[in-house]
């Protein structure tokens, strides 16, 4: 077991399970679906189990890549099937595998049409996402990065809301534009590095500033669209609103992290000079996302749209943290990414719970839900607080660290960043108040029934994660230390 290819398992177990589900679940709506669900759950659980040793056996002292696997893949282009994780990426593999289980359970009774295709899409996507986080070869990264578009496109388009086609196509084209420009940048680097797609080689590659600046923008398009940063965030509210609950969860919890992860894996270490040169721009864009989008969030009338905009605002913290070039900033940003993975997933699930019962996402259609769904109201309260950044929840840790990092640079930077604590509290709690508290608004709300055991299980798991991360964040940050310090050392060296 010591030398088991854990990362390959993390990638291929869900994919194989997905294909299996696709293969057996032919009869729509018939008896076959019960098997499909259990197999999907089995695949997701197994996929999560194989990632656990990644955490327990992780060497905290090492800043290098661990659990590496390397096989030649495409000889002509010198491409390797090269996997490995460091302190930055390992947590995302775990997060992704964890969220996949929840998504499978959350869709258990909700999804009735094309069940096998639904589960197959999620499982295959889950495997590919693990691939993105563990790829050490740029082309392998790219293949996984872009391949995730296909299942997500299908998920939004097939199981989405009324405007799903528009949202799916917008999502796909936006993201594809970004990734194609990244592909050209990668080919340029491949060429400069003497025919190597190894990310580690690129880290060492000296590059003149003008080339770095051009490459920076090439990568920026890809990652900024994914994060998403202002002003290329407009696909996100549409995609989130129209996607089925599971789709929104994966989109918010994992897919958005790809962009931010790309900054840490590619932009900062490969283009350190350009990153420092353009840090002002990135910081400015992040602050706009935090403050301006925070205000935009306030006026949303659709709950899913509200959480989608709040995601943009929270992800602004991540990009802000990265471009502060200090350990607080970068670690804070990474913590924020994971915390956002829990919290936004939970909030989308909460909205999904209500939507399944009422078939409406409009805040105005709700009111007084606490009267009929007290357990749900309590859990959602926790997630709302976490979204607002209340201490002792995971939301606080990341934001606090990033604000500390910002404070080291300038007071005003920290001041604007901290405005999120006000806006965040305002939009989340105001929404919570309008939906949950007060008198029962209409007879539909009066007929609501509280959480069933499956919903309870999913939300409780996330609640535990949120609280654990808020109370004992060291469990997460200790994994990152060595790699983040190494990254910062690397980013500080000029490579002109």
């Amino acid at each position: 077991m010591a030398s088991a290819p854990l990362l390959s398992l993390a990638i291929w177990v869900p994919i194989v399970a997905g294909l299996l589900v696709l293969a057996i679940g032919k009869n729509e709506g018939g008896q076959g679906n019960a098997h499909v669900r259990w197999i999907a759950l089995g695949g997701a659980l197994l996929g999560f189990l194989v990632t656990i040793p990644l955490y327990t056996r992780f060497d905290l002292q090492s800043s290098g890549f661990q659990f590496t696997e390397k096989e030649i893949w495409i000889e002509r282009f010198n491409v390797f099937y090269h996997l490995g994780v460091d302190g930055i990426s390992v947590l995302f593999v775990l997060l992704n595998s964890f969220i996949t289980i929840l998504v499978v359970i959350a869709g258990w009774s909700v999804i009735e049409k094309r069940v096998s295709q639904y589960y197959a899409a999620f499982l295959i996507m889950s495997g590919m996402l693990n691939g993105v986080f563990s790829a050490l070869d740029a082309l392998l990264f790219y293949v996984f990065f872009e391949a995730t578009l296909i299942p997500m496109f299908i998920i939004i388009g097939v199981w989405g809301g009324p405007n799903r086609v528009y949202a799916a196509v917008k999502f796909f084209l936006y993201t594809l534009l970004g990734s194609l420009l990244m592909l050209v940048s990668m080919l340029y680097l491949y060429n400069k590095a003497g025919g190597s797609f190894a990310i580690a080689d690129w880290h060492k590659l000296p590059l003149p500033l003008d080339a770095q600046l051009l490459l920076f923008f090439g990568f920026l398009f890809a990652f900024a669209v994914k994060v998403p940063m202002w002003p290329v965030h407009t696909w996100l509210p549409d995609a989130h609103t129209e996607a089925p609950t599971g789709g929104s969860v994966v989109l918010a919890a994992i897919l958005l992290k790809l962009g931010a992860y790309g900054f840490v894996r590619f932009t900062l270490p490969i283009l350190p000079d350009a990153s420092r040169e353009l840090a002002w721009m990135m910081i400015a864009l992040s602050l706009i996302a935090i403050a301006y989008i925070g205000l935009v969030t306030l006026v949303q009338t659709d709950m899913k749209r509200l959480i989608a905009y709040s995601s943009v605002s929270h992800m602004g913290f991540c990009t802000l943290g990265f471009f502060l070039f200090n350990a607080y900033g970068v670690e804070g940003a990474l913590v924020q990414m994971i915390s956002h993975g829990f919290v936004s997933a939970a909030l989308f699930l909460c909205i999904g719970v209500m939507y399944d019962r009422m078939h409406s996402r409009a805040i105005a259609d709700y009111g007084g839900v606490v009267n009929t769904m007290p357990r749900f109201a309590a859990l959602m309260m926790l997630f709302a607080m976490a979204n607002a950044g209340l201490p002792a929840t995971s939301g606080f840790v990341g934001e606090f660290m990033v604000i500390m990092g910002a404070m080291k640079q300038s007071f005003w930077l920290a001041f604007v960043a901290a405005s999120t604590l006000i806006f965040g509290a305002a939009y989340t709690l105001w929404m919570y108040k309008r939906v949950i508290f007060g008198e029962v608004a209409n007879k539909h709300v009066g007929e609501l029934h509280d959480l069933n055991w499956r919903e309870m299980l999913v939300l409780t798991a996330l609640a535990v994660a949120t609280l654990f991360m808020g109370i004992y964040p060291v469990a997460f940050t200790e994994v990152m230390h060595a790699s983040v310090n190494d990254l910062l050392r690397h980013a500080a060296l000029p490579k002109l």
Partner: protein
Amino acid sequence: MTAREFINHMLVLPEAIVLFGACVLMLVDLQVKTERRIGSYRMALGVLAAAAAATLFMLFVNGSTKQYLFHGLFVADALSHLLKLVCYASVAAALIYSRQYLLDRDLLRGEFITLLLFSLVGMMIMISASSFITIYLGLELMSLCLYALVALNRDSALSIEAAMKYFVLGALSSGLLLYGMSMVYGATGTLNIMEVARVTAQLAGAASDRTFLVFGLVFVVAGLAFKIGVAPFHMWIPDVYHGAPTAVTLVIGSAPKVAAFAMAVRMLVNGLPDLAQDWQEMLAILALASMAIGNITAIAQSNLKRMLAYSTIAHMGFMLLGLLSGVIGGNRLSMDDAYTAALFYVIVYVIMSVGAFGMLLFLSRAGFECENLEDLKGLSKTSPWFAFVMLILMFSLAGIPPTAGFYAKLAVLSAAVTAGYVWLAVAAVVLSLVGAFYYLRIVKLMYFDEPSDSPRAGAVAPAHPELQMRVLLSANGLVLLLFGIAPSMLMNVCFEVIKAL
């Protein structure tokens, strides 16, 4: 004839088999009285199998050595063997895919099979040509058969119009090509490709002869562009693709592209490498124009065949990216990589094109042509498996991993970036984004829309075609996925072949 000479003449064995087979088939078919023409059909497949066996035999015996025959008019090398194999496969696929379609329309006549085999002979001659005159002969043989095939459905005004257009424009392009060849002959005094290369290398310094040569080159490239179908010489493509019976569109859209690629390699890469700077610039303009016109115009099409026609134009533009990136400022180091990319692109494109048109044939049936976008509505409901195959085909055409189309794009883009055409690569990716839109639209129609209730609707539920068609079509799609996950095999083969060029 000595034994040695006889063995040498074995090199044309595949051509001989197909030619002889086609002649015999023509006679035998006169005796076939049944509608279904099982005999002719099986015999044609048999001929293809025999030719493939002969070619494989050559490949094993000769490996990558290059052998000339008929005083340098004919060449047998690894490239010709590989491209011929691709041609056999796509012609065989065309036969299998189109059988039911043609039967339903009462078009499965002996002419179809015979002309198909004769056009294959033309392609094989083009592929193995080592003289401008052989290229021209092969080209005409192929083209004349294809003109007739387009008019196969002689009761359809659309078909006749398409055939007319194809014929007139084809004749014009042949004229251009011939004119260019005569210029090259005037400048170099020879039509043999190797000789042309030798003489141009010597002439490279002399300004006056060079002008003459470049003048000829312009016409050669223009003629070539017509045949490959790149903008601004693409006008015939949409009309012909649209007008021809889908079975014939499949034929035109697949193997002839391979032959045209071979023609480009023989004439430009083998024959005029010293003018690379000149023709690369011309190809760059053609490539950019095709990618732009092809991708942008395809969006506006509601007819699937026209859409795929414009997509072909765009794809051929992409393929040119590889061809035009070989020589960098007189430096030929990256030549192999660049031409490997183009070769890989052509092969992958042919697989995709055969699959896409095969799907249209599959979904058509008696009295119904599957040719409008709406006809694909809700396919994932009525036929999930084939909707999935079409999904792979579309994502491959759009160049999204993990499909073979992605590596084809990657290879040519990488070649272009290596050659310093970064602007062209950026333009290419932006235009391929435009292209992604219309491929996505098909996926959208198949997966997101409900089957329509219009009278045309039942349309989407395929009739039950023969087993071999289902199997082949599935394999066709899966091969793209296979090459998407393990592209190495095909890439290595392409590289070996180009290295031996």
